[in-house]
């Protein structure tokens, strides 16, 4: 008999971390994600874990680097400006091939911005974010259930690929309360951690670094990372579709934008419009194959985002050869409402093939 919890998104995520055997958390307060460190400051003590409120986000990501190098499952969380501070550390994690889970409960920007939800960090999350030629896996929940389930997946993928994984939530998902089903955690089969720093007793010393100065080393290392990202693209793209089989227009949206879009699509269908939804769950790797396949029949896509145009570029890269791509943006300040998205759908639906 599965347990149902009525729980806040941020806490569902934090509970997911503990369920996934994460016992180390380092973070710094920032609205709207403080529930995560607050929850973990209490709960980690109960499982003999370690919680540190670090002096800054910079310190947090570096403590994460140390804990990961020691072989532990560890996590940090922040919101947009704090994630900016962490970019150097994330680049080091990727370059050093260390597993790590980094949660961004996106708020509005740029700069100090505001505390309401946005999707303005899509580029930051999917284009590496820091310096150098690397990628992080990016998971985009759209419900409290996914805030929890995708956290379990995040830890597994981080260990599978020895790479940082970003969970890209937002203020709405973080603060809302919904029912979720508290399923048992079934981990992926993962490779042994034979690279961790534990003290060179009875073995040769190990090294965790990202510095490559010798002739040819840097190039080889970059291709090695590239192969890893290619493998991610092949094996890890995830998405959800609904009502796309007969759709004349497909909305592409993630996270909170996808939630509101679902209602808008229902309203559109009530008016006889044949609209479907394609919801990326992984933003890196972007589910381009799934979209491309859809574009062989659907010739009109509408990217709906809570920003001024970021994911739409990936939609275009995936389908622009075979379909028209439109964009509706609702920049941060307040979440979009279904009626507004319905208007946006209608605007591009008129003129769609009968």
């Amino acid at each position, binding site marked *: 008999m599965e347990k149902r919890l009525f729980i806040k998104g941020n806490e569902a995520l934090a509970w997911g971390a503990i369920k996934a055997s994460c016992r180390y958390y380092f973070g710094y307060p920032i609205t709207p994600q403080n529930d995560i460190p607050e929850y973990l400051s209490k709960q980690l003590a109960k499982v003999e874990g370690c919680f*540190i409120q670090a002096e800054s986000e910079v310190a947090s990501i570096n403590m994460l680097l140390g804990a990961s190098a020691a072989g532990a499952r560890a996590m940090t969380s922040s919101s947009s400006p704090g994630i900016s501070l962490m970019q150097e550390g994330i680049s080091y994690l990727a370059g050093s091939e260390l597993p790590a889970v980094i949660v961004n409960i996106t708020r509005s920007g740029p700069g100090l911005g505001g505390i309401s939800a946005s999707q303005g960090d899509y580029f930051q999350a999917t284009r590496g974010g820091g310096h150098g030629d690397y990628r992080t896996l990016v998971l985009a929940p759209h419900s409290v259930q996914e805030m929890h389930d995708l956290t379990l997946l995040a830890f597994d993928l981080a260990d599978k690929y020895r790479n940082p994984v970003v969970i890209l939530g937002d203020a709405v998902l973080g603060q809302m309360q919904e029912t979720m089903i508290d399923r048992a955690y079934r981990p992926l089969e993962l490779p042994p951690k034979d690279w961790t720093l*534990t003290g*060179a*007793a009875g073995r040769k010393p190990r090294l965790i670094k990202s510095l490559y100065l010798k002739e040819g080393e840097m190039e080889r290392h970059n291709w090695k990372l590239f192969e890893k990202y290619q493998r991610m693209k092949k094996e890890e793209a995830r998405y959800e579709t609904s009502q796309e089989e007969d759709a004349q227009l497909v909305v592409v949206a993630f996270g909170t934008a996808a939630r509101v879009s679902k209602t808008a699509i229902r309203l559109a269908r009530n008016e006889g419009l044949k609209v479907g939804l394609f919801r990326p769950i992984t933003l890196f790797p972007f589910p381009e194959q799934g979209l491309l396949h859809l574009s062989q029949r659907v010739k009109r896509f509408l990217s709906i985002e809570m920003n001024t145009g970021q994911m739409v570029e990936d939609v275009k890269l995936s389908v622009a050869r075979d379909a028209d791509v439109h964009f509706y943006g609702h920049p941060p300040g307040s979440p979009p409402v279904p009626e507004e998205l319905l208007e946006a759908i209608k605007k591009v639906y008129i003129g769609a093939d009968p």
Partner: protein
Amino acid sequence: MKQVFKRPQSLKDIPFHFCPGCHHGTIHRLVAEAIDHFDLRERTIGVAGVGCSVFVYEYFDIDVAEAPHGRAPAVATGLKRVLRDRIIFTYQGDGDLASIGMSEIVHTANRGENITVIFVNNTVYGMTGGQMAPTTLLGQQTTTSPYGRDFLQDGYPIRMAEMLATLEGTSFSARVALNTPANLMKAKKAVRRAFEMQAHDLGFSFVEFLSACPTNWGLNPVQANERVEKELIPYFPLGIFKERKGTDYL
């Protein structure tokens, strides 16, 4: 005759790339000697800073993690929280520790993390070609203070050992030098004491080494060594500024 001096086991038998007369090599050796003295090699993990210090992984025969510039104390914190019975030390220069890493070192000391920090203070940025450091002396010419450090423009040099000694979390804070054999012997004792404290879970230990950087001081090794005595020690006094005897602070 029997051999009375040889390379410590924790120090690999490879040539140092450091400049002639640079004290990094000596400091590496003193740290390795302390590790060997307490037989800690197999459970020690080093954290390299960025600067001439970045190559610790080439020279120490131990596990090493490379940290971003200034962040070694935070990386060391993560390591130590996971591996509580291992010996964790950082090796950082004056830019790494006292400039970009100032927040990390202060808070790591403040939390009383049970690690050892080796701080190499040569009043200049070495690796990057001789720019001003937070420890550059007033009047000292560097590539970014070509008219000499001016208090009105750049403030005074920072005395890290004294500053960290004021924190409750610090258990051991000392400043040493290597310019004379007598000072070197005191330095050896201080490094040993720092690692001993960590091995006994006595808290955060910090050793600041006044070092020569002949290349960026524009001096030959002997002159650079003299500068430590004539210019550095008067501003950065040697001594033990804090030494906790037991866990009396708990």
